[in-house]
């Protein structure tokens, strides 16, 4: 009586390559939401474990939306939100590397810090959408799919995020 269709998600090679392509951006997404890197990693791992355990029911084409559905639902578990503390790439030290004027360098540094602070202070939905675009380089359509909202809503969040950032930095 058992109805059981073999799904390729159960294949270790298929699953592993899917994991490699999605694990970091899923972890990042959870980090943008909750601001705690360890927690984000744990939640991402749990989502992938659920996918693995139910691999026979989730074809690989559906696996991504399965993961993000679990990740989005994790908000229901009463996870504590922390400040999203980001940093710049190590080799990044400002825009114009030729200008070695100490005053200029200081200004650049101050701007960088102001931006991080402003991003911290964004509301969650704007921050998540903005960072998925800036850090993970996702298209608006991808973000829309993962957040399970329309593209227009993504654009609005990003637009508002930029307005907000400008306001914060200008003060």
């Amino acid at each position, binding site marked *: *009586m*058992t*109805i*059981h269709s073999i799904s390729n998600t*159960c294949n*270790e090679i298929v*699953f*592993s390559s899917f*994991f*490699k392509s999605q*694990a*970091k951006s899923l*972890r*990042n997404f959870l*980090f943008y939401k909750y601001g705690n*890197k360890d927690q984000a*990693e744990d939640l*991402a*791992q749990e989502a*992938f*474990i659920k996918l*693995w*355990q*139910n*691999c*026979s*029911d989730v074809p690989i084409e559906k696996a991504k939306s399965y993961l993000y559905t679990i990740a989005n639902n994790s908000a229901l578990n009463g996870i504590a939100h922390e400040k999203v503390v*980001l*940093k*710049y*790439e190590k080799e*990044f030290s400002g*825009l114009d590397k030729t200008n070695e004027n100490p005053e200029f360098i200081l200004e650049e540094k101050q*701007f*960088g810090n102001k*931006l991080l602070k402003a*991003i911290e202070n964004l509301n969650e939905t704007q921050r998540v959408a*903005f*960072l998925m*675009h*800036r*850090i993970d380089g996702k*298209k*608006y359509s991808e973000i829309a799919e993962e957040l399970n909202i329309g593209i*227009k809503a*993504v*654009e*609005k969040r*990003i*637009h508002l995020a*930029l*307005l907000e*950032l*400008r306001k914060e*930095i*200008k003060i």
Partner: protein
Amino acid sequence: MDKNNKLAKWLNDEMTPSELADFQATEDYALYEKIKNYSSHLEVGDFNEDKVLETILKQEKSTPKSIPLYKKWFIQIAAVLVIGLGLTFVMQNYSSVTQLAQNGEKTTFLLPDNSEVVLNSGSEIQYKKWNWDNNRALKLQGEAYFKVAKGKKFEVVTNLGKVAVLGTQFNVKARENRFDVTCFEGRVKVNYKNAELVLTPGQSVTFENGKQIKTTNESSKPAWLEHQMAFEKENLNQIIAEIQRQYKVSIILKTKKTDALFSGKIPTDNLETALQIIGTTYNLNYTKTTTDKIIFQEK
């Protein structure tokens, strides 16, 4: 600037050249440009993906997998239907089938082997469909004509006696104390109390109160199938009972002289004629109080 999420379009490099030129002319453009560039150099930091993957792959896959809920429902519904159909089938086959002809009606039906039965008015037959071909037996109350398909022994059981045949046509009438069997084709074996006799076509036998009156019958079908009641040495009470059944009327007899025996035919499709025949024969007057109530009294 707020309309159409222009900043989002710009950040995604979707602005048209003229939109971009307008935007670049604004006071805040330099700041936005800086935000764009700085934010593209943000990072969260790596994590040990391989270790996580290893942990995940160590987890047991849940065994081949729960049937989704709707499928369970489907199976449950299907099971209920199958059981229901099964029960219906069993009930239909094991339980007795009853065929009934009310007073004033005749009922014709086929048995499972296509044997034909015509029930005369005020008669009832019960039989079981299950295993009919090997057990052709039915219970009769009243009168019926049978045209039996060839096959194993065919039995008609009545309160008064039993009739057993092979393929044939015959009539059985078991009313009160009188038991009539007429054979129209084939051979019919009649059991009445301890007596057993065989009828051949054209023969009929009548038992009344334990006495046997043997007669012959010349027609090829019982008279009642041709809108007549045929009586052979029957008393007034039996004739009145038959008229009541055929016409669905009630008759009150105000006479005690009911012993005279009548032989002859009375129509079943003309009440007036039927009543006149009785009146003339037994020297009675009749009055109708309502359309279905008749009183016979002595002249």
